[in-house]
């Protein structure tokens, strides 16, 4: 076998092995929490005219892997955070048990709404590949 063919064969084999792993290896998550925090000084920054966005309009969660929304107010004043009013130092832990799209009125967003998309646990190889690729893109971005 020529060296070039050998390299291509190794690369192809590696690609297939990576694809197999991505599609079939069990997915685990060190924590099921998706954490968002209001840092100390946020209110002061907002008062001085800074635009501070902490919660995205749309949050994606996955059942069994990352299915608990955790909000924490580390600032010195009460804040409307997501759907609720939170006191300084207070945290809010909201678990999800059903895959669905949840809408919350949220005055912190221009649209007045926050959407939480809870997706089913990725059980099929294709779903696992999608989940891993999305996680990779999220981590890179």
């Amino acid at each position, binding site marked *: 076998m020529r060296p070039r063919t050998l390299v291509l064969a190794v690369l192809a084999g590696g690609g297939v092995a990576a694809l197999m792993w991505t599609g079939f290896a069990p997915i685990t998550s060190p924590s099921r929490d998706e954490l968002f925090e209001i840092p100390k000084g946020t209110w002061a920054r907002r008062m001085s005219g800074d635009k501070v966005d902490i919660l995205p309009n749309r949050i994606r969660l996955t059942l069994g892997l990352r299915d608990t929304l955790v909000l924490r107010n580390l600032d010195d004043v009460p804040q409307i955070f997501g759907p609720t*009013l939170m*006191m300084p130092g207070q*945290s*809010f*832990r*909201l*678990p999800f048990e059903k895959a669905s799209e949840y809408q*919350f*009125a949220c005055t912190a967003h221009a649209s*007045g709404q926050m959407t939480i998309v809870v997706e089913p646990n990725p059980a099929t190889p294709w779903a696992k590949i999608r989940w891993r690729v999305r996680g990779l893109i999220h981590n890179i971005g």
Partner: protein
Amino acid sequence: MSCRALTALITSLLLTASAAANDAPALKAGVFSPARQAPDFSLQGSDGRELKLSRYRGKVVVVGFGFTSCPDVCPTTLATLAAARRELGAAAADVQVVYVTVDYERDVPERMKKYLSAFDTTFVGGSGSAAQLAAVRKDYGISAEKKQYGDSYTYAHSSFTYLIDRGGRIRALMPYGHSPDDYAHDLAILLKE
């Protein structure tokens, strides 16, 4: 007591408290930590009396916000709460549902009473002036936006309910859409405390 013994005692108490907290059954609702005291309010109750939250200290209270002309969220939530109370059986005597209107113009106490009684005769509604209701909403972080439709109007409002424990602390927030089973599950846990 020596300083070392005191430190050991405090550490032991903290560990016990931490273990107890970890052993506590999980609620289906979103849980606040630490729980804060629910702000009291004074409104016109649909039962003809002054409606103060402190009136129900010792009971588990579910506080929701809505309006009697609501086409979807409010009737669904109230029907769910009524079903949850039925599931709880005799224990439901210690559960009080309080529904505070966001519609000061239409929801007078008599109208609230008639509307809420259709779901459960124990439900109590809260009415008041625009300023009174706005103050309660602010204390509870509730949004309510009036939307005009021709000659009529509706409200876009927060759709969740608060679960308040026997000590008057806001323990949890139940998002819209949960089942009577979920409510009964959480209320049963709070009732046992």
